[in-house]
């Protein structure tokens, strides 16, 4: 067993197992927000660096090789962070059941989606007049985007209004 720890690749493997568990946990609890992304990217950097240095055995090689690989890791991580920071603001509690106003763009993009269910104004069924019916395939998120044609207001709902 003591010889097991002498091999740097074996030590790296144990760290990778723990780091994978932490990443899994982050996804399982639905961690969101900048803190979660930073934690996730830090784990990615630690894991990636261990794979580069101990699995691909680049530890002690000329700086060019380490710069190439570790630089790639930093570049990709930086681009992910940049993409996240420049993206649309996301809700901090996505599992919330509370209806929220949906942005115009959200409903508009669904109207043209081939997989969305669109019920036209005044068509028979349980859909109130003037509403566009959009359903998610599954999930507990508010899934129905209702558009009031009288004032153009859009709202997320969990159920059809009676």
């Amino acid at each position, binding site marked *: 067993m003591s010889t097991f720890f002498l091999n740097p690749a074996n030590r790296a493997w144990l760290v990778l197992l723990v780091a994978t568990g932490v990443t899994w946990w982050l996804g399982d609890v639905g961690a969101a927000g900048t803190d979660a992304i930073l934690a996730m990217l830090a784990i990615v950097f630690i894991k990636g660096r261990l*794979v580069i240095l101990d699995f691909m055995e680049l530890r002690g090689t000329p700086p060019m090789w380490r710069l190439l690989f570790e630089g790639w890791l930093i570049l990709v991580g930086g681009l992910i962070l940049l993409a996240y920071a420049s993206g649309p603001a996301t809700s901090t509690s996505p599992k919330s059941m509370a209806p929220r106003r949906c942005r115009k763009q959200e409903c508009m993009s669904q109207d043209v989606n081939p997989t969305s269910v669109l019920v036209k104004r005044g068509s028979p069924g349980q859909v109130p007049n003037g509403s566009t019916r959009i359903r998610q395939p599954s999930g507990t998120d508010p899934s129905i985007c209702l558009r009031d044609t009288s004032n153009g207001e859009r709202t997320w709902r969990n159920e059809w209004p009676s």
Partner: protein
Amino acid sequence: MEDCRYRRRPGQDPQHRRARDVKLEYAAKFGEGISFSTNTFYRFYISLTFFHFMHVILGMAILAILWVKTRQGAYGSHDAHGLESGAAYWHMVDLLWIVLFPLVYVMR
């Protein structure tokens, strides 16, 4: 602009998770009508995971060839270039998944 209908990531929806337990992840998605053209996220989700899957298949073929050649005594102190190249490729595929998994399944 990503559609709000599919804001959930594949691993984070309880119903998706249940579906994933009983059948293949792709089959569960396609069965729900999610396809390559559903939205930007699913376009990247399918292409990234599929291309990575192809790399894993290629890596397993390479490992099988290395295993056979090692048994034949092809590698040793005189020559281990092929063995080391194959191993480096396999670890490179691992490295890519370390970046891809949080990006596709964890980040939101």
